[in-house]
């Protein structure tokens, strides 16, 4: 028979040894895992401007096309600037900004110009044309959804969009990741401004294809579609001061 003392000592040693092994593994594998996450982010950004990439060449393509990373505050001022491999202004590289934490600072604020958030904007140059990519994040039906919106040099026309999700329903809400859905944002010239006013691009049922602020929602995926719509609106609205002051 085993005494109580034996059992206590036995389980303590077992747990301590297991914990030590796990801690060691977590520390040892972290660099690889972080690199994977970074590469995935680069692939998503490249996807928004319709550049196909593989995990192998993502970094190379990213460095080739994305010439500048900026961080913008709610007044539209540039608070960080990263280009040609070094940080020229600010403390944190815009690429490393914790988007979730920054976007959370906007929650519940009527007037976004009072927000303390600092959000990134990526500048890329493809065949001489400048494009701005803005990462967005929001909620779908079952979990988080996120993506990127690419905007042309006029800071108005949408030239690309891609979305991803954590756990939307396959075949319904999860269809936001398909090319067919995302293609709508680049067809028929969608714009985020109407004159001087910010109106975003909405995802609505039975959208009018010729309306430059509407795309068709996914049937059976209403809540996810609304989530995408809100996400675009809430995230892009923050950048309006920047857009207005830099528009030509």
């Amino acid at each position, binding site marked *: 028979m*085993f005494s109580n003392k*034996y*059992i206590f000592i*036995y*389980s303590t040693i*077992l*747990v301590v040894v*297991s914990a030590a*092994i*796990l801690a060691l*593994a*977590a520390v040892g*594998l972290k660099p*690889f*895992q972080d690199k*994977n*996450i970074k*590469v*995935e982010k680069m692939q998503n950004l490249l996807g928004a401007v319709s550049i196909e990439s593989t*995990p192998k060449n993502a970094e190379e393509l990213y460095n080739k096309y994305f010439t500048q990373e900026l961080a913008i505050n709610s007044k539209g001022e540039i608070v960080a600037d990263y280009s040609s491999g070094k940080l020229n202004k600010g403390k944190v590289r815009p690429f490393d900004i914790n988007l979730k934490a920054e976007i959370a600072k906007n929650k519940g604020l009527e007037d976004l110009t009072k927000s303390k958030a600092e959000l990134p904007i990526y500048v890329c140059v493809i065949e001489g044309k400048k494009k701005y990519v803005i990462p967005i994040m929001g909620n779908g039906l079952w979990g988080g959804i996120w993506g990127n919106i690419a905007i042309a040099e006029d800071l108005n026309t949408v030239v690309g969009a891609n979305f991803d999700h954590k756990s939307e329903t*396959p*075949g319904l809400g999860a269809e936001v990741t398909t090319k067919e859905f995302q293609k709508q944002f680049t067809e028929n010239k969608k714009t985020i401004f109407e004159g001087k006013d910010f109106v975003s691009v909405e995802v609505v049922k039975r959208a009018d294809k010729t309306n430059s602020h509407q795309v068709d929602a996914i049937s059976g995926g209403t809540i996810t579609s609304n989530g995408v719509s809100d996400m675009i609106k809430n995230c892009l609205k923050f950048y309006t001061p920047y857009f207005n002051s830099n528009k030509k």
Partner: protein
Amino acid sequence: MGKINLKLIKSPFNKENPITVQVLGVCSALAVTAKLEPAFVMAISVTVVVAFSNLIISLIRNTIPPRIRIIVQLVIVSLLVILVDQVLKAFVYDVSKQLSVFVGLIITNCIVMGRLEAFALNNKPLDSFLDGIGNGLGYAWILIALGIVRELFGSGSLWGYKIIPQSFYDIGYQNNSLMIMPPMALILVGIIIWIQRARNKDLCEK
């Protein structure tokens, strides 16, 4: 000894198959087999976890107080599962995203605990290890078979490579989207069980 050892690996392939005979680990077999690659990685992961947890438990079997043996087993199994999960995240990130929560759920996969209780606690380390390999591979071949059928007919590809040529689609062939839904996996498992029982009459209940 050699003869007995071989039997430990062979029998789970057919008459003691964890999925089709013992009906364990069905949940993950339905969830991760829509494509071949995740099915394959899942199969390998489970095999590694069963084999090594069997080995470790068997090595320390005489020191484990019976009153806390389930907890000890759980600690060892979860240790291995978290290790596997971390390794997948580091080296096959894409696949680990597809498998998502199911890697973590290997902890609750009945095959693992079942083999520990039924075999590793009473047998020598080498035999236990082989038993783990055998049961893992028994689980693996079902997953891989399901993965092949479901990906081929559901997405027209294997391991992500297009198999069914575009000309087929041009003349009206369509992917069977029921194939990528979990119910179809259940039907396919049923068909495998049917074939297996038709060939081994002694598996049928009286």
